[in-house]
C-alpha cells in the first residue's frame, strides 16, 4: 500500500509543473496588459515612457522563459511574488479570501452530505415508490437550478419578507460566530442544494448497484441484520463513487463560486480570480491557478488514500 501511495504522491509534482507551464504561457497570450490597465484607469492617457518603466519594474520586458525561471525559483521557496496590481505579497491577497472560500466550501459540503446520503439511501431502498420519486424530483430540481439564481431568490426573499439582508462584510467565525453564520449560511444553502443533488443521484445509483451484488445476497442468506448489511457492506462499498463526487465538488467550490460570490458579495477566491484576470495580474492569476490545481491534486490524493482504506483490493495490491 505504501508503494501505491508514494507513487500517487510523486505524481503530484509533474502534474503541478505542467499546470504551471501551461498557465504561465496562456496568460501571456491573452491580449491586454496589467501596466496599461493600471495606469490608464478611468482617464486613459499615459505616456509610453511611463508604461515602459512600469514593465521593466515588473520584469515584463524580459523573455518569457526568463520570467518563468524567475517565477519557478521563487515558487520552489513558496514565494509567489507580489501582485502586479496592488504590489502586496500574493499570500496577503489570498489568505483572507481563502479562509472564506474554504468555510463556504466546507459548509456547503456539510449541507450536501447531510442531504445527499440519507436521501440517496432511502431512494435506493424504496426504489420506484413515491419516496423515490420525490427524492428524484428534489435532486433533478437541484441539478437544474443554478446556485447563483437560488442565491438571488434567497436575497430577494429575505429583503421582501423580512426586510433583512445578510451582512455585507466577512467576519471570521472565531471573532463572531453568529455574524459569520448569518452571512455564510445562505450561500452554503444555495450551493449545498445543487451539490447535494449530484451526490444524491450518485448515492442512489451506487446503492442500487451494490444492493444487487452477490456478497449482499450472501450476507442476507447468512442471516445478518439488515441494518448491519446496509451500513457495513452496502453503504461502505457504495461510497467509493460518492466520495469521488464530493471531493471533486469540494475542490471546485474553492475557486469556482464566481457568480455566487458576486451575488452575496463574498470576498472569496472566485471573485479574486475574476479580478486578477480582469486586471491581467499575471502573478496573482498564476498563484491562484496553482492553488486551485494544488487543491484538486490534493483532493485526488486523499481520495486515493480513502479508496485504499475502503477497498482492500487496492490495499493489498
Amino acid at each position, binding site marked *: 500500500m505504501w508503494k501505491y501511495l508514494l507513487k500517487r504522491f510523486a505524481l503530484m509534482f509533474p502534474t503541478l509543473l505542467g499546470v504551471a507551464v501551461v498557465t504561465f504561457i496562456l496568460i501571456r497570450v491573452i*491580449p*491586454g*496588459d496589467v501596466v*496599461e*490597465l*493600471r*495606469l*490608464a*484607469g*478611468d*482617464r*486613459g*492617457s*499615459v*505616456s*509610453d515612457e*511611463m508604461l515602459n*518603466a*512600469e514593465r521593466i519594474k515588473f520584469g515584463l520586458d524580459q523573455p518569457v522563459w526568463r520570467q518563468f525561471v524567475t517565477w519557478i525559483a521563487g515558487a520552489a521557496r513558496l514565494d509567489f511574488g507580489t501582485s502586479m*496590481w*496592488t*504590489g*502586496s505579497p500574493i499570500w*496577503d*491577497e489570498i489568505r*483572507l*479570501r481563502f479562509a472564506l472560500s474554504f468555510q463556504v466550501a466546507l459548509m456547503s459540503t456539510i449541507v450536501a452530505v447531510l442531504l445527499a446520503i440519507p436521501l440517496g439511501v432511502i431512494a435506493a431502498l424504496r426504489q420506484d415508490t413515491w419516496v423515490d420519486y420525490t427524492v428524484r424530483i428534489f435532486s433533478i430540481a437541484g441539478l437544474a437550478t443554478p446556485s447563483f439564481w437560488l442565491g*438571488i431568490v434567497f*436575497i430577494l426573499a*429575505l*429583503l421582501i419578507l423580512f*426586510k*433583512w*439582508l445578510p*451582512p*455585507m*462584510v*466577512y467576519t471570521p467565525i472565531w471573532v463572531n460566530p453568529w455574524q459569520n453564520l448569518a452571512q455564510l449560511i445562505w450561500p452554503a444553502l444555495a450551493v449545498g442544494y445543487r451539490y447535494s443533488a449530484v451526490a444524491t443521484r450518485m448515492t442512489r445509483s451506487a446503492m442500487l448497484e451494490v444492493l444487487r451484488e452477490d456478497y449482499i445476497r450472501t450476507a442476507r442468506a447468512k442471516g445478518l441484520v439488515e441494518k448491519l448489511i446496509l451500513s457495513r457492506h452496502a453503504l461502505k462499498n457504495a461510497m467509493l463513487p460518492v466520495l469521488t463526487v464530493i471531493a471533486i465538488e469540494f475542490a471546485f467550490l474553492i475557486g469556482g463560486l464566481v457568480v455566487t460570490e*458576486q*451575488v*452575496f*458579495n463574498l*470576498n472569496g477566491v472566485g*471573485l*479574486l480570480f475574476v*479580478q486578477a484576470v*480582469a*486586471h*491581467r495580474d499575471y502573478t496573482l492569476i498564476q498563484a491562484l491557478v496553482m492553488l486551485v490545481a494544488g487543491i484538486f491534486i490534493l483532493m485526488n490524493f486523499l481520495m486515493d488514500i480513502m479508496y485504499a482504506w475502503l477497498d482492500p483490493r487496492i490495499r493489498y495490491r
Partner: protein
Amino acid sequence: MGHRGLRILALLASFTLVAGTGLVDPAAAQDKPRHGGELVFVVPSEPPSYDAHQEETFGLIHPMAPHYNTLVRVDPFDKTGTKPVPDLAESWNISKDGLIYTFKLHRGVKFHDGSEMTSKDVKASYDKIIFPPAGVKSLRKDAYRVVEVVEAPDPYTVRFRLKWPESSLLLNLASPWNWIYKADLLAKDMHWYEKNVMGTGPFTFVEHVKGSHWVGKKNPNYWDKGKPYLDGYRAIFISASSAQVAAIRGERAHIQFRSFSPAERDSLVQALGPKITVQESPWDCLNFVSMHHEKKPFNDKRVRRALSLALDRYEGSKNLSKITLVRDVGGIQVPGTPWATPPAELEKLAGYGRDINANRAEARKLLKEAGAEGLSFTFKNRGIPHPYEPVGIWLIDQWRQIGVTVKQEFIEASAYHPMLKRGDFEVAMDFQCGFIVEPDLDLPRFLSTSDANYGKHKDTVIDDLFQKQARAMEPEERRKYLRAFEKRLLDEEAHVIYTLQWHRIIPHSSKVKGWTITPSHYLNNQLDTVWLSE
C-alpha cells in the same frame, strides 16, 4: 395607476426638479448638522496602492480621501464642481503678472501622528507630484508643466513660481489627487505612501481588509474645529452592481458615490420611497468616436462630418437617458459649467442642429462628394455594458440612416486601451473622464502631440487655439478661443465625434446630509461636511 405608482411618479418628479433646476442650495436647504453615526458607503472598485499621486481610480479616492487634505479644494457645495476654496491654504494671492501664486497656510494643522503640518510638507508633496525623482511614478506631472519651482519661504507660506501665466492653475491645485504628505516620511522613503496612510484629514485610518472594506474614524484633533460630524465611516467594496443595489435597498449601506443606472435608481426609488433621495448631475465623462486619420476614407473631413451629421443627439438623449448613463447634449465642456457652450451656439455646430432631416441630407451629400457612398466599416467598442454598449448600438442605427453599414466589434476591457494605442481601428469608441471641469485639463488629449490622440490627427490650428485659451487671462478672451477650438474640433475638421454627456445618478439614504453631487465622481469625498440625520 395605484398609490405606489403615483408615489413613484411624485418622487421622480421631485428629484428631477431639484436636479434639473439647480435652484436649491444644498447647504441652505439642510438642517443644522448632527454629530455622530457611521456612514457606510459602497465602492465598486478598490485602491491598487494607497498613493493618490500615482493612481487614477476612484477606488482609491472614495475610501481614502477622508484621511487627507489638499492645498485648495473644490467647494463641496458647488454643484458645478469648479469653484476653488481653501483647504490647508487659508488664503492666497496671485501676482499681477500671473507668475507667482502665494498661499498662506492654516496654523495648528496636525498630521494624524500629532506632528505639525507646515509649508515643508506642501513643498515636498508638490515636488513629488511635479518633479518626481527617478523611479517614482506621478501620473499628473504633465498637468503642472507651467510650474517652475515650489518654494517654502517660511513655515506657513508656499509659493508657486510659473514659467508663464496659466489661468487654470488654481483649479488644478484643487485636484482631489494632490494629497499633502508628510515631508519627513517622503524624505526617508518616497514609496512610503504606497502602502501606508498618514494625513491631516478629518478621519484617521483604522483598517483595510482587502476585497472587503475600509474603515476610518473621526479625527478628534481635526484642525477645522467642529468637523467632522460623523464618528466614522466604513467603505464596503462591492463589484457587482446588483449587490450594490441590494446593499442600499437592504439599508446595509447609505450611498455609493460613483453612479447607478437609471433602472437601478428607479428600482431603489420604488422599493424605498421617501427613505431614498436622488441627486443627479451631468457627469464629466464622455464617450466620443475616434476616426483613424491615416486610414481611408477617414482622412477626408467630409466623411467625418457626415458621420457626425447623422446623429440625432436630441432624440438620442431622450431615449438613451432612460436606459443608460448618458443624457445631455454638450460640447467640449460639461453643460452647466462655466466654460460650457450655450445651447443656441451649440446648435450651430455640424450634427447639433435641430433639423435632423436637413443634417442627414447634408451627410449623404458629403459622402457622395467624397466618393464614400455605401460606406461600411468596423466600429470597435469597449466591452462594458454601461454606457458603451447602448451608445454603440445607437451610433450604428444613426449611421445606418445615411446609408452607412457598420459592424460592431466589442473589445474586452483590458485589451481595449492597447488597441487604441496601437491604432488598430478605423473607427472606435473613445472616452475621457475628468476630475474638474476645466478646459486645460479636459482638452490636451486633442492636441496633435498628445499620446491620447489615437485618431492621429495633425492640426496646428487646434494646437495654437489651445495654447491661446490656456494663457488668456480675461474670461471673454478665453471663451472666444474655446469656441473656436470647439468649432474646429467638432465641426470644420470633425476630428472626433462627441456622443452624449454621461449622467451621474446618486440615489442615497435620505439620512445622508451635507453631501452635494458634482460632475465628477472624484470630487467631494472628504466627508468633513457629511452628517447623518438619524
